[in-house]
């Protein structure tokens, strides 16, 4: 019995010390993490709308950014081939096209799926109007050429953009 108590005591002690240490570290860095996340988003918005004043706003609990008088930008997330893809989408105020897209994060296969984060793929969306569909080689108006060997990731990106664009258009367009 004494041995058993010693084991339990030791485990509780070690977990307590670990929990204490971690909460200390966490509370010291949580602000910095939030700031870093925000900075990454704002930098992405600035790449879409260079030289604009960027303000953060909320509508019905959904976060978005206002870039001066040029347009809106918002973060969109969704499932890619292996993991979540997150990106920032910029649109002009009348929602008639896409102003630009910056991919914040993708963990899809480097060299294939991860190519959707590259300018070569993303510039296809620029100045065009959703909904998009990804096909092997684009011919029609709403078609986007998928990255070779990464049809699934490309389709996922289109789907995320279409969904978020429609949602924000409903919320913001007057």
């Amino acid at each position, binding site marked *: 019995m004494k041995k058993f108590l010693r084991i339990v005591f030791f485990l509780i002690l070690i*977990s307590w010390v670990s929990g204490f240490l*971690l909460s200390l570290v966490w509370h010291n860095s949580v602000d910095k993490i939030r700031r870093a996340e925000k900075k990454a988003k704002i930098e992405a918005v600035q790449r879409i709308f260079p030289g604009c004043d960027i303000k953060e706003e909320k509508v019905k609990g959904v976060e978005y950014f206002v870039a001066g008088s040029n347009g809106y930008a918002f973060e969109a997330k969704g*499932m890619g*081939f*292996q*993991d*979540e893809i997150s990106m920032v989408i910029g649109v002009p105020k009348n929602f008639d096209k896409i102003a630009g897209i910056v991919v914040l994060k993708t963990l899809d*296969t480097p060299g294939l799926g991860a190519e959707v984060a590259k300018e070569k793929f993303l510039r296809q969306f620029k100045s065009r109007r959703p909904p998009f569909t990804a096909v092997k080689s684009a011919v029609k108006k709403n078609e986007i050429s998928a990255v070779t060997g990464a049809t*699934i990731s490309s389709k996922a990106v289109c789907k995320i953009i279409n969904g978020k664009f429609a949602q924000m258009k409903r919320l913001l367009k007057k």
Partner: protein
Amino acid sequence: MNYVLIFIGAAIVNNFVLSYFLGICPFLGVSTDLKKAMGMGLAVIFVMMIAAATTWPVYHKILVPYKVQYLEYVAFILVIASSVQFVEMFLRKYVPPLYSGLGIYLPLITTNCAILGMTLFMVIRDYSFLEGLVFAFGAGSGFLLALFIMAGIRERLNAADIPKPFNGAGIALIIAGCLALVFMGFSGMMR
């Protein structure tokens, strides 16, 4: 339908061993004969299910409500390690035949990265409890599949003439590479 997709996704398309590289150590270690591979694979499926069933409530009912998600790794590994230990004791006492089959692999599995990896993916992808269980079952089955194929190939390899330095781990890794290429062919199955 969704459950089928999650299962196939975890078992074949994004096979844990061949595309996430999780659980490579046991994959190389016990893939030398088919019988061991089978035992290990079944034990992994079993532990995967237990891990998913225990870590899901811990994360969603304890860590999230109290806003201490940063304790995730410590909590998960503790829960997994202790439930495995518990299962091992239970099996030894009440189901000795099963214990003699799976028991020796159980302690090894605690430190199998596939288990912790699976629970982390489950949380990141925000699966519901049932989806999490299906995901765990799929991941375990995928592990069994990869291990079984590998063991089959390696039994044949014993008769092959391999350059001496590559004998063992070297050739096993190169074969795993070829298998990974083969499994890439499955990626078209999704969506």
